[in-house]
């Protein structure tokens, strides 16, 4: 199932945040959205997943979700959004409960997905016992459990420290390599974008418009930390964004 964003514009209280966005989200590929802070990339992601209604334009679903897909558009949030009163397994189950699956089937999916994300030993732990990286692994497991057609990741690694971020990037790459998934990955971190993105859409400052879409052909598994080719792509992306980032930084909030 592909997604297509068509002529999408959005505004909050008359202030334009997104302007004429056209995007194609292709099956089995990761599209990164980067841009200076306040460019509306998170808003765009919420609109793509149907959590917010755009002022104009639309997001089209091309084709039907694959067999066995419980929740076609599934988010991974920056602040994890785990229910603190549920165990790891309970949190992963949450997304399954809305679909009337038999108990045994749910247990099977939960244990399978926890094994894939190396969380089996933590099944009964509460979120308060987990580090930030583990929490985000649980959120990723919860998203994988409903077998999404498109994963929508909203700055999933931004709340983590640099080392944990590196580890989780490796996890995401190996998850994708074993079973390619479709994803829209919002980040302000260019290093993440060049490591995980098959294509990278650069948004301009408010109102967000697409400035350029950069494609990286190198397979995800071959992209290593400090790769020279990726460094030059990252440099190119930074050059596109530098002035805008500076201007965004100098902007008064809520002015």
């Amino acid at each position, binding site marked *: 199932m592909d997604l297509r964003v068509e002529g999408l514009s959005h505004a909050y209280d008359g202030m334009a945040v997104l302007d004429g966005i056209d995007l194609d989200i292709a099956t089995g590929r990761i599209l990164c959205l980067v841009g200076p802070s306040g460019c509306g990339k998170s808003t765009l992601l919420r609109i793509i997943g149907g959590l917010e209604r755009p002022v104009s334009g639309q997001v089209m679903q091309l084709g039907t979700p694959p067999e066995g897909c419980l*929740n076609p558009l599934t988010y991974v949030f920056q602040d994890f959004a785990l229910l603190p009163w549920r165990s790891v397994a309970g949190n992963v189950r949450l997304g399954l409960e*809305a679909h009337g699956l038999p108990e045994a089937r749910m247990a099977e999916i939960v244990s399978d997905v926890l094994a894939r994300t190396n969380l089996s030993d933590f099944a009964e732990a509460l979120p308060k016992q987990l580090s930030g990286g583990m929490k985000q692994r649980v959120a990723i497991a919860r998203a994988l459990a409903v077998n999404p057609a498109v994963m929508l990741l909203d700055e999933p690694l931004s709340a983590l420290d640099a080392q944990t971020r590196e580890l989780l990037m490796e996890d995401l790459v190996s998850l994708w390599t074993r079973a390619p998934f479709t994803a829209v990955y919002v980040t302000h971190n260019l290093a993440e974008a060049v490591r995980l993105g098959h294509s990278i859409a650069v948004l301009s400052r408010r109102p967000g418009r697409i400035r350029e879409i950069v494609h990286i052909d190198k397979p995800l598994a071959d992209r290593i930390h400090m790769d020279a080719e990726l460094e030059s792509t990252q440099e190119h992306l930074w050059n596109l964004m530098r002035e805008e980032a500076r201007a965004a930084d100098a902007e008064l909030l809520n002015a």
Partner: protein
Amino acid sequence: MPETHAQPVPFRGGGFRPVAIRGAGLAVFASLLILTEWGTRSGWISALTLPRPSDVVKTFGELWSTGMLFKHLVPSLTRLVVGASIGVTLGVSTGILIGLFSYVRSGLVPLVAALFPIPKIALLPLFVIWFGIDEGSKYALIAFGTFTPTVVATYGAVDNVDRTLIRMGQSFGMGWFAIVRKIVLPGAMPGILSGLRISLAIGIILLVAAEMLGAEYGIGAYILEAGALYDLERLFAGVVILSALGILVSTVIGAIEKRLLNWRT
């Protein structure tokens, strides 16, 4: 380099972190009791100022041995349980509706604000007319008294439920009821339970008021009767029972919190 004078950096941290000290509360109670006992025995506290603690204990012992204690306690507890259950159930439901629906919120918040400061005791005659002089008016008074603080605590707690958790629920395709049951209610539980402490304490206060009219038995009736006769020993015996009830309620809620809220950091 010249030899310089060395001294340790002075410590400026610490404090501002009270911890529970075992037995301190008990010691305060005990020393107050010992002080009054000694004062009343040695005569610098007159028998009309304060009853002697040992006499209160004696009165309490009589209550126990004659079986009057339970004759008073059972109807009072029934009134408290029934009245508070009605008030808390309605309060939590109303609070959740106020927390979730704009129209309910706009319509009811001013009403609740208007009802909250009314001394419920003043409405007892009205309740007697509406619900009868028997148990009905007593249940209504306690229910009404516990309702308003529960509503206020509940909708505040619902407001404080992390909205990203609700968005998360929606993003997984959860229905409205599932979101309320699995996210809003557990998320609001800490606030609801701490509201419950206040509501139930108010319930105990109103117990005495509820038994002002048409009650033969009950802790409140017992206290009021003793008060009317200036029988301080019996008055205090009744008051002690109410205090014990308050401690009991607070302990039970503490235990519930421990069980239900073990996920809190």
